[in-house]
């Protein structure tokens, strides 16, 4: 009893005391005019460093992506390291990686919107933009992987000159349909909530910017009817795009799982891929938020430590979920005792490329579990940047383990081989990373990256209510 009363009387040191709710964006409102000005300044301010990055990345895209790809088209697919027994190399690895990254936007924007997670408000657009550009980068890979890219239209379902209708039973057609559906719907989902902010930009710009925003804002005035139909459409999208998101990565996983390839033919591949995609996507959102916060003016008002904290908790949960699915897949394969599958597991852990497998485990499990439980680390943006970059390195290693390392060690020992990516492949992969960054960099100066109306709506709904001697955060349902 004495101990208890002593602990009650002892005041907590400042660091341990409860944080001031006004540190949260929702409880630190500023006039709408000021927030508009901040977002517009962030969008229109460019430095020499910005242009140096744009030019540098454009050159990398030109040389590494289009140059290397063009050379491969002219010379032949022999420039790539894919050959018997590994016909799916880093092109497919990177394809799966980008499709995974693209899940971030939908997850952050749609799922958190459906569950009314208020911390999502300032960065929904930044993550939706990631989805669109990641899909654009990823969608290049089926074309690159085709080899004969000039007949790419054979992928499109229409009866060709030989009167062969595409086989709708083929997972390749599913892929085409799923990625097209997701790309179109996520682009529209990016655009719809953008319309009121484009109207805001229209009212504050002149010249070519005004002309562009005026066209894209569709004559938005903000009438009750316009808001009503926008909200209805966003709600339909938020609910409908979630199953589409799940279907896309499930179908990507089925590209592997429907084949009777040892190590791939697993019923758990669908959810395993989805969890991995969400883990890598949310990690990429954190990385992007750090860059935006560090490089764009006024972004530190909108993107705060609380956001890194909240996303860090999500990452920890998804890292655990990923570990669960990984272990599920591993244990049952190992316990099943099927010789080829067990040999593949041994090959992953002890073969010449075993470091990739350990890198995957360290980056996806060890690092998040050792760091993200700690609130101080979660609230340190640069630490979160490093952790999330490492998570994505781990997720890339996971796809590399699943695809070329598994393919190189199948049922026939005479057909075993180790795949090594060639300079052309590495160059193309670097090129698509540069393309993603370039598109993002350009978009950051063309569209308002913060949905101002959503932030203001959230700030209006949040108030501090006095209960006894404390000021308690409370949220009002305004819809």
């Amino acid at each position: 009893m004495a101990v208890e009363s002593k602990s009650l009387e002892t005041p907590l040191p400042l660091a341990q005391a409860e944080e001031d709710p006004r540190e949260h964006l929702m409880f630190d409102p500023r006039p709408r005019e000021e927030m508009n000005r901040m977002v517009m300044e962030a969008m229109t301010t460019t430095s020499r460093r910005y242009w140096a990055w744009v030019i540098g990345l454009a050159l990398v895209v030109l040389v590494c992506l289009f140059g290397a790809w063009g050379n491969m088209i002219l010379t032949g697919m022999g420039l790539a390291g894919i050959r018997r027994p590994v016909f799916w190399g880093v092109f497919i690895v990177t394809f799966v990686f980008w499709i995974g990254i693209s899940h971030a936007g939908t997850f952050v924007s749609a799922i958190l919107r459906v569950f009314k997670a208020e911390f999502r408000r300032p960065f929904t657009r930044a993550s939706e933009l990631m989805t669109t550009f990641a899909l654009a980068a990823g969608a290049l890979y089926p074309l690159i992987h085709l080899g004969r890219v000039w007949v790419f239209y054979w992928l499109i379902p229409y009866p060709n000159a030989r009167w062969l209708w595409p086989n709708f039973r083929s997972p390749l057609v599913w892929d085409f349909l799923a990625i097209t559906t997701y790309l179109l719907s996520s682009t529209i989902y990016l655009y719809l909530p953008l319309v009121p902010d484009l109207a805001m930009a229209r009212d504050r710009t002149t010249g070519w910017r005004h002309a562009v925003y005026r066209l894209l804002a569709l004559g938005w005035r903000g009438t009750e009817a316009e808001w009503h139909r926008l909200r209805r459409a966003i709600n339909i999208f938020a609910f409908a795009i979630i199953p589409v998101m799940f279907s896309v990565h499930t179908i990507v996983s089925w590209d592997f799982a429907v084949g009777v390839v040892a190590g791939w033919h697993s019923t758990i591949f669908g959810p395993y891929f989805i969890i991995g995609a969400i883990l890598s996507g949310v990690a990429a959102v954190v990385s992007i938020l750090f860059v935006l916060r560090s490089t764009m003016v006024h972004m530190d008002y909108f993107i705060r430590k609380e956001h890194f904290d909240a996303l860090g908790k999500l990452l920890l949960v998804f890292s655990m979920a990923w570990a669960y699915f990984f272990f599920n897949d591993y244990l049952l394969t190992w316990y099943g005792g099927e010789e080829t599958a067990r040999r593949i597991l041994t090959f992953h852990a002890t073969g010449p490329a075993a470091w990739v497998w350990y890198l995957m485990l360290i980056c996806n499990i060890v690092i998040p579990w050792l760091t993200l439980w700690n609130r101080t680390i979660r609230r340190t943006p640069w630490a979160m940047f490093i952790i999330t970059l490492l998570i994505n390195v781990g997720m890339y290693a996971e796809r590399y383990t699943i695809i070329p390392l598994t393919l190189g060690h199948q049922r026939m020992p005479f057909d075993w081989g180790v795949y090594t990516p060639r300079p052309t492949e590495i160059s193309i992969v670097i090129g698509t990373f540069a393309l993603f960054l370039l598109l993002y960099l350009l978009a950051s100066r063309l569209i308002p990256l913060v949905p101002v109306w959503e932030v203001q709506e959230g700030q209006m709904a949040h108030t501090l209510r006095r209960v006894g001697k404390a000021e308690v955060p409370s949220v009002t349902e305004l819809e």
Partner: protein
Amino acid sequence: MGANVVHLALFKETEIDHAAEAIARLRTLGVSDRDISVISGIPYSERILGRPMTWTTIGRIGLAGAVVGFLVAVFLSFGTPLLYPIRVAAMPFQPIPTSIVVIFELTMLGLLISTFIGVFVETISPSFGPRGYHPKVSDGHIGILFSSPAHAEDAVHAALQALGAEIVHNVEEERLWP
């Protein structure tokens, strides 16, 4: 009776209670709901401002798109094998499990695209009621657009100004979209 003139009363968003009161006051002065339109920088539900419920057909347009997508998918999955037969060993000619994937994707595609088309069509189509705009709206003001007979102008203005409104006379319709 003189012609109706369109006016705009601007309220700061912090004075939303006054804006709601102003709408009620306009009604008592004989301005019908049909002749009032509220424009704002963030969405307010009808009940906050005491306005009649707004209807939209977007949900129905989306549903119609989903049905079209479903029918196209059924045709592609079950119709095209009949038109252009491809026999794959040990695979049924019209398999249901694989068709579910195609049907799901195209149904969702139909739903989402038609929802967007619905928004686009409803947004750019002409709307009825008073039109007008002021850039202050996206800077944190609530605008109440209303049309009232010219002879009632003074009474209406006085009532709204008493509630803190900034009045813009004879609002011209701005061309906001090409």
